[in-house]
């Protein structure tokens, strides 16, 4: 109460009286009012939305990770399939080359054998013909010899 003695004159800038406690009570009441009218309801809505956004973001992140995993998987599969295809192409090329070579070899060897056969045949025939010829020549010479002998 000594404060009110200090400013005892009625009125003045520093006239402190029952306005002070009443105003304090009013502010406390206002705090409760604003808490139930403003802070609680708005906080509920805002925090609900924040939770909603947060869960949505985390869900989207999860989905994105899943998509990325699937994409990587597909990429892997694609790569595998490509290398497989390349392998198959290479194998087929090798195979065909092998077949081609084999065929050529076969043909060559066939040609060679038939050539050899022909040569052998020719040789045989030549030798037999020669033999025949020499036989005939022999016979003929004998005949000539005989005739010459008989004439004399």
């Amino acid at each position, binding site marked *: 109460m000594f404060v009110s003695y200090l400013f005892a*004159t009625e*009125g*003045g*800038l*520093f*006239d*402190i*009286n*029952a*306005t*002070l*406690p*009443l*105003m*304090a009570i*009013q*502010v*406390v009441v*206002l*705090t409760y*009012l*604003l*808490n139930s*009218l*403003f*802070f609680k*309801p*708005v*906080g509920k*809505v*805002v925090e*609900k*939305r924040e939770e*909603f956004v947060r869960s949505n973001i985390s869900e989207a992140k999860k989905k994105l990770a899943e998509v990325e995993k699937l994409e990587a998987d597909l990429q892997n599969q694609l790569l595998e399939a490509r290398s497989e295809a390349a392998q198959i192409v290479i194998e087929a090329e090798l195979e065909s080359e092998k077949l081609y070579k084999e065929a050529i070899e076969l043909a060559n060897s066939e040609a060679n054998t038939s050539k050899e056969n022909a040569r052998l045949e020719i040789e045989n025939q030549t030798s037999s013909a020669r033999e025949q010829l020499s036989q005939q020549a022999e016979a003929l010479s004998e005949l000539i010899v005989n005739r010459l002998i008989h004439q004399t």
Partner: protein
Amino acid sequence: MNLNYFFTNFAELEVGQHLYWQIGNISIHGQVFLTSWILLGALLVFISLGTKKMENDPKGLQNLLEFLWDYIRDLARTQIGEKVYRDWMPFIGTLFLFVFVSNWGGALIPWRLIKLPSGELGAPTADINTTIALALLVSLSYFYAGLSNKGWRYFEYYVHPTPIMLPFKILEDFTKPLSLSFRLFGNILADELVVSVLVFLVPLVLPIPVMFLGLFTSAIQALIFATLAAYYIGEAVEEHH
């Protein structure tokens, strides 16, 4: 009270004059309550309009109120800390809204047009009773916050870095409400005085920039008051290691 005599006789300015209401044998300043009821009534109407139909996609007033809520939450959270800011957010927010609405209401509404038998209507925060009431509430709440959060360990704060700090920390408990109340009171009263003196001397154009400055000061004072209150509470609940 020579100063008072000077002020009260300064032409039409009525400084330090009050509209007294007698209730039993206590007297109160009626003009402070009249303006605060009008302004707080408007605030409550505004808030109940904005929160009447809350939607997940905010529209109009709800948007504004949510922005305000977010602003107050950030203020409380940065000053008080993640752990207990929720408990104190309504109090800090009420302080901010009360001071802000009082300051701006006092500056924006032409109260002077309403004649009172004695004194004049104005910002409730231009009355020392209001600001001391607010400051004492802040003091009580930071004591309560400290004691309820840390029990008797709250008093470790007084000897925190070294026991040499004890007298200064005790002194602080007195200077905190003093500076809180007088800063707000002085700023708002000075602003009202400057504007009314200027309006009285040069009734055209010249007071307008000062009025804008007053609006700026009013908003800043509300922010300062709420921030300091939150800071004091935060200081009281902070754990020292």
